[in-house]
């Protein structure tokens, strides 16, 4: 039989039934590896369901620090009979299959090329526990114990984590530790350990943290000074506002009065959610909402209003697999075009593409500044993979001298010194005009905000010249945006190259790994990571500087490629799409295969 031997380099997958308490046991496993200083990437693969359906948890351990998904399962922990045939088939030759041996495994499940580790988990639980719920919950902890023996997870690390997990419920610590020991004991008595794939303590994590993108977005909104959040629950964005709620309760409740320095409204639908956000921003409060694809579709009309009436708006789009309801619990980057051009008429919106939770935090803060500076919607484009999975990321940072950029606002005193206020009157030559908050001044600064065509003084107009002047000014503002949105990250390969690779968002992990893998095969690529739309000048330059550009994205229609071609006028032939749209995060292997295939045919 094939033997795979590796230290700190493998993929382990847990097959569970949702609603059985496996999530916290699996998280304990991943966190322990993180605490041992080894780079780790856990991913939940779960159904749009609450109880009873298959769910997987996949952990990639990578000494080299690659954090993207990797194909091929080295170790399968099978706790779900329902998905067992597929789970067995997914194990790499030479890999391991851990299962509950309380019942004998049927002959059809036996593969000659993998190792079986049978532990009578249910039997142990029946022997040790009387409460049915405990039997189920501790079964999870027992397999973590077994894994710790097989893979050499340091026991004190697990003990510390349990102590942290059950802070305030200390009496739960001992039974959990006991469950771990039951698993360890069974391995010690029945198997050779450790395995040839195993862990070894390193110091490769540094000061990085393990957190999900949605929490980072929610926290970013608190730091950005958002005071009004309106939302409608939708997977996978729900936990953005839930995180905002939690952090706001913690940091924005007046210690003396108990009053809240924020307001959160669960709206009746996405239409109302974005309407509330626009109303609050119009009235001078920083406000945001979070949604996913179907919500973006519903919000389109309002986004057009905010664009045309020039009202700051912040929207976080945690993308999932479409079209329509699609696969609500699977990831994609498939709202690019819908978000960029949301709404009828000539509209376009500023987009930000964070790649890591740290960037989720930063980009949300930036989004509020940009929205108020540019007086327009800003959409932060994350995805389910980034939003709902923990990622190893740089720690959050905040400069205490930072102030919010509230943009061009005339307050009471400013209005005193003005003879005639024109809400849409261009003064500074950057396409951005001055706004006022309602209630500022008894006789100056009032106007009617409208989605109908308006002149410089916000009066309704159907005059062609005035209309054209206004929409052309919006285009000038769009040009201004290009120089203030986050610039792309460009990396030059060691040698001069004719080919480049372009990626954004969560494709960063696998794209960077692919660049390394390709370099090992003597294919050297310069890379550009997009951070925002509209595209800065350097994006066009990068494309112009290369003969071929591989555009990596996670949708079927190569939407970012279309956007680049449309906005920059580049030749479509030189833009080669490299795609993954099956709902799972893109892998380096996929990218490498598609790029190599292209070199073979060129």
């Amino acid at each position, binding site marked *: 039989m094939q033997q795979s031997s590796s230290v700190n380099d493998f993929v382990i997958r847990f097959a569970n039934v949702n609603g059985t308490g496996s999530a916290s046991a699996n998280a304990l496993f991943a966190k322990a590896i993180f605490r041992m200083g080894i780079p780790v990437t856990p991913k939940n693969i779960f159904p749009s369901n609450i109880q009873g359906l298959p769910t997987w948890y996949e952990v990639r351990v990578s000494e080299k620090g690659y954090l993207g998904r990797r194909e091929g399962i080295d170790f399968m922990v099978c706790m779900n009979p329902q998905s067992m045939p597929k789970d067995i088939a997914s194990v790499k030759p030479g890999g391991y299959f851990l299962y509950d041996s309380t019942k004998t495994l049927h002959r059809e499940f036996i593969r000659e090329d993998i190792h079986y580790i049978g532990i009578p988990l249910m039997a142990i639980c029946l022997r040790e526990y009387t409460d049915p719920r405990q039997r189920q919950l501790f079964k999870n902890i027992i397999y973590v114990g077994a894994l710790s023996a097989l893979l050499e997870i340091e026991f004190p690390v697990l003990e510390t984590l349990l102590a942290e997990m059950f802070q305030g419920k200390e009496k739960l610590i001992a039974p959990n530790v006991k469950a771990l020991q039951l698993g360890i004991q069974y391995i010690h008595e029945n198997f050779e350990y450790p395995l040839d794939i195993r862990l070894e303590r390193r110091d490769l994590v540094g000061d990085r943290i393990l957190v999900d993108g949605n929490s980072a977005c929610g926290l970013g909104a608190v730091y950005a000074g958002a005071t009004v959040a309106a939302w409608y629950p939708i997977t996978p964005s729900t936990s953005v506002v839930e995180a905002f709620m939690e952090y706001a309760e913690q940091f924005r409740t007046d210690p003396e009065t108990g009053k809240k320095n924020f307001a959160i409204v669960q709206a009746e639908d996405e239409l109302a959610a974005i309407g509330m956000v626009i109303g609050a921003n119009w009235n001078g409060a920083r406000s945001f909402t979070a949604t996913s694809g179907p919500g973006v579709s519903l919000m389109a009309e309002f986004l057009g209003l905010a664009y045309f009436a020039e009202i700051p708006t912040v929207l976080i789009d945690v993308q999932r697999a479409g079209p329509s309801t699609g696969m609500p619990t699977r990831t994609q980057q498939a709202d690019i075009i819908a978000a960029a051009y949301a709404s009828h008429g000539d509209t376009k919106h500023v987009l930000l593409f964070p790649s890591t939770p740290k960037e989720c935090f930063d980009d949300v803060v930036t989004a509020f500044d940009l929205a108020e500076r540019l007086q327009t919607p800003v959409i932060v484009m994350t995805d389910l993979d980034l939003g709902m999975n923990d990622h190893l990321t740089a720690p959050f940072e905040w400069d205490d001298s930072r102030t919010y950029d509230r943009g061009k606002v005339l307050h009471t005193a400013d209005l005193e010194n003005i003879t005639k206020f024109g809400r849409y009157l261009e003064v500074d030559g950057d396409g951005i005009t001055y706004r006022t908050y309602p209630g500022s001044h008894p006789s100056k600064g*009032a106007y009617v905000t409208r989605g109908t065509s308006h002149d410089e003084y916000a009066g309704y107009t159907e005059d062609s010249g005035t209309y054209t002047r206004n929409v052309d000014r919006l285009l000038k503002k769009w040009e201004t945006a290009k120089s203030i949105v986050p610039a792309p990250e460009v990396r030059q390969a060691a040698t001069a190259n004719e080919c480049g690779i372009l990626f954004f968002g969560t494709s960063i992990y696998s794209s960077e790994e692919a660049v390394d893998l390709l370099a090992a095969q003597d294919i050297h690529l310069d890379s550009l990571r997009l951070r925002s739309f509209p595209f800065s000048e350097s994006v066009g330059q990068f494309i112009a500087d290369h003969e071929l550009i591989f555009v990596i994205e996670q949708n079927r229609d190569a939407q970012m490629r279309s956007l680049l071609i449309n906005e920059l006028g580049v030749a479509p032939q030189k833009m080669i799409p490299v795609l993954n749209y099956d709902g799972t995060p893109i892998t380096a292997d996929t990218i490498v295969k598609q790029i190599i295939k292209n070199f073979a045919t060129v």
Partner: protein
Amino acid sequence: MTYTRPRFRNPHLPVNKIGYTQKDYEGALSTLCAGCGHDSISGAIVQACYELSIEPHRVAKMSGIGCSSKTPAYFLSNSHGFNSVHGRMPSVATGAYLANRDLVYFGVSGDGDTASIGMGQFVHAIRRNLNMVYVVMNNGCYGLTKGQDSATADAGSKSKSGHTNPFQAIDLAGLALELGASFVARSFSGDKTQLVPLLKAALAHPGFAFIDVISPCVTFNNNPGSTKSYDYVREHIEATATVDFVPIKSEITTQYEAGSTKEIALHDDSLIRLHKIASDWDPQDRHSAMNALHHARSKGEILTGLIYIDESLQNLHEVLNTTTEPLNTLEEKVLCPGSKALATLNAGLR
């Protein structure tokens, strides 16, 4: 086009308590059809705000889309206005109200904007008890698209083209009452003596104040056979009571027949005085109000006046327990937890 009114001032015009003339509450010239009921309502709003001595710039005028939603341009030109998208005024008003609890929110909508495309948002604005006035200028038809029936057109009502509406009407006042609105009234654009005090009471009410104002469309729905024409409404109107609004600590000068009045004290010590009340109706009892509405309807009458009021209901800010400072005035030192807190959070994620 927006046509601004000439700014001629008669120096001898009377002023209110804060020194404003009624002209200071006017807006741009209306572009609606001559004789439109909506213009009378705009006039009543001007008068109510003037008489209440509300600072015009402290009002935010919110509307959706339609003839009615154009009217905020025609009153209170020193107030910010927001002519939003069709049927979505309640959500924009909700956001604005959350951002600054200190302004007066005056919402104007129409029967299409509220009873059809905006029904969902209307219903939820009531549930949240926003502190706002919500006026529906109700003419039973779509004016801007030339006279199609709206959802408030009565079954059997005939449009100008001779078409008879086959569908049951949605009674917005009844619906608001059913959903727990804290202030429900109905009036007629042609009855300023009733509408102005109702608007004043609505402005003084600390929660969601809904007024359904029947406002005939002179162009498309003022024909014989229409139940929202001037003639029909005048013939079928039935008032709950005559309404007077007595501002805070004003001397009560008018005398009423004993036994025929009911006084309702508002939170700010102003009074609503209702007299010649229908004997079987109590505006502070939802069941009784509902009965009165049904009863009038079964007789083919349009019940007007203050139908229901409940001042005890918590408004949205009270429910959310938000700070008394307007949220839009809070600054970094209150809003941003700073780097120290972030360091602690980072430590918790390792």
